[in-house]
């Protein structure tokens, strides 16, 4: 036990760079994103005072909920050095479709919720199996499984929907303390994950593997176990997002999952999570996803048609990764 803890400690100490730069760069990122968010809100508020309304808060927080949860899952994958999980769209819709299917057959909600999470976890473990035993890069594996999974879903269903007149759908469309019910689990998850990752042995193992997998391995951390754990847990989180997605959305087609891909990746990168692994704070996802989720509503208030959304989202991602790359370059010097 003590052996293992010292191991973990020395493993995390193996990255003096990461430790030394984590605080300042984390604060810098937080301040930048928060500033951008405030500027956006103030500018929109000055342009159109009616922007500052409960309606806006609801629109923003509804968007935040699913994106935020997916971003946590993506951040875990990135921090562990597995770069990106491109199969999130399929896992999300798969879980949501299973949830809808079970609810239609009158299965009680708690069982359905567990099933949704398990579907996501199983998907993640399937990815991990291919990655670990094939020794293949996660980006290509998840690209391929997303291709295959998306096609299989299309063969099975064109549209799915959770039964409308049920407690489940009511939950997804009602509010608690003035904010959507589905927003609160997202906040809880971000806070919990952000607290646990740097403070638990497993979390530090994950960061150690992401920082330098061979150094971590030399310290006795099993790469295989870490991969399975990371993809299993992040899959379960995507499964949970699928439950909330099914609760809060009308009929959905298999392809709709892909609309989340860009805001999720942008949110993770804006939060300062390095795609190269080993660095990042999950708490900042609240800020980055909050900012990104405000953009669409702001654009509407500035009179841009909804078609502009994609243009701005794409540009924000380009700028964010450019800044991220620039920062990484400067750190190397």
């Amino acid at each position: 036990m003590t052996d293992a803890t010292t191991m973990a400690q020395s493993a995390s100490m193996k990255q003096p760079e990461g430790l030394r730069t984590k605080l300042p760069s984390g604060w810098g990122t937080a301040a930048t994103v928060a500033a951008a968010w405030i500027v956006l809100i103030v500018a929109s508020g000055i342009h159109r005072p009616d922007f500052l309304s409960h309606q806006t808060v609801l629109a923003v927080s509804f968007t935040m909920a699913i994106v935020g949860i997916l971003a946590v899952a993506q951040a875990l994958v990135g921090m562990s050095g597995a770069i990106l999980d491109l199969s999130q769209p399929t896992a999300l819709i798969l879980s949501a479709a299973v949830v809808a299917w079970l609810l239609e057959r009158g299965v009680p909600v708690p069982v359905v919720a567990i099933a949704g999470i398990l579907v996501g976890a199983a998907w993640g473990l399937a990815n991990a199996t291919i990655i670990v035993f094939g020794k293949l890069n996660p980006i290509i594996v998840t690209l391929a499984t997303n291709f295959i999974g998306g096609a299989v879903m299309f063969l099975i269903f064109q549209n799915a929907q959770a039964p409308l007149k049920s407690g489940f759908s009511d939950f997804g469309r009602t509010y608690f303390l003035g904010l959507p019910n589905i927003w609160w689990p997202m906040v809880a998850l971000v806070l919990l994950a952000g607290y646990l990752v740097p403070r638990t042995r497993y979390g530090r193992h994950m960061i150690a593997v992401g920082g330098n997998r061979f150094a971590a391995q030399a310290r006795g951390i099993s790469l295989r176990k870490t991969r399975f754990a990371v993809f299993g847990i992040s899959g379960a989180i995507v499964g949970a997002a699928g439950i909330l997605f099914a609760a809060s959305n009308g009929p959905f087609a298999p392809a709709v999952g892909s609309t989340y891909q860009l805001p999720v990746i942008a949110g993770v990168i804006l939060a300062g999570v390095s795609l190269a692994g080993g660095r990042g704070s999950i708490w900042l996802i609240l800020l980055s996803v909050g900012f990104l989720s405000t953009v669409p509503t702001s654009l509407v208030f500035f009179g841009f048609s909804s078609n502009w959304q994609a243009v701005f989202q794409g540009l924000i991602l380009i700028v964010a990764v450019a800044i991220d790359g620039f920062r990484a370059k400067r750190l190397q010097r």
Partner: protein
Amino acid sequence: MTVETSTTNTSGFDRQRLRDLATGSVTSIAVTLIAVIVVGLTWIGPNFLQASNITIIGTFVAVPMLVAAFAGFALLGGVVDLSIGSMVGFSSCLCATLLGWGWPLGAAIPVTLVACVAFGAVNATAVVIFGADTIAATLGMLVALRGVCYLMAQPSGSLAAFDANFYAFTNLTVGPLPLLFVIALVVIIIAAFIVTRTRLGRHVQAAGGDDRAATRAGISVTRVRFGALLLSALGAGIGGVLYVGQLGSASNLTGTGLEFQVYAAMMIGGYSILRGGVGNPIGAALGLLVVAGTSNILDVQAISPYFTNIIVGLLLLAAVLLDRLRGGDAYE
């Protein structure tokens, strides 16, 4: 490995290149293509290789093949350009808009291509100058340009731009083969020649294979990658323009998903989106033919096109596994 050889011993490089060809990815993709043809012949019968069916496959694959010939330089140089799908769409929409304003082809096409290269320069600046993650940055461009397509094709979603001469040109055939397909093949062969036989090609390979070693050998990795991303944008631009000719119109959805179609086929053909320095344009062309042949077989048999995606996904996994067994990077 090959990089070291190329800088020290040129004739050894050529021999190694030949050996690579015999045991390498091009051979395995050629075998896969033969397998697809055999399946087609046994399942569909001799009609599979009938002239009219070959014309259909050729028309379908010509533009992706051209796009792949150019995008291959980016992959080879170690940068991925995911934005090509929307770049094709943007090029189509812009070209159709200009033609719709009554511009002559001779003005509309160059302006369109310059605009595409300008967006390619944005990609290149973010990725090469700032050091942005290439997949994430070009994913941003993919989404942004798709948004631009929607804005340009407002409100109906499509832009008519019928030019009788352009339409006639893009639909010419040489025997059973569409002219565009023949052009694409020629471009692929030229690209393959550049990659394997010229200094420029070896520089791109070196920059993608090991950027530090390449820098030490006096190659400007920055310039190679910047240029490669511009080329990839130019290729997508040409593809988009040709679609306008082929279809006589552009839509806000033109080119959607083309990036996955092209890169999946290229990875099946021996390229890697994560590691530069590997891949051959011939392999890319064969990979595209495998995918086109598969989807044609399913099409003729009236089987859901989604099965194509399943087969492509499985082929992709098999190809990267094969690449690793052949000595590619193992991920642990």
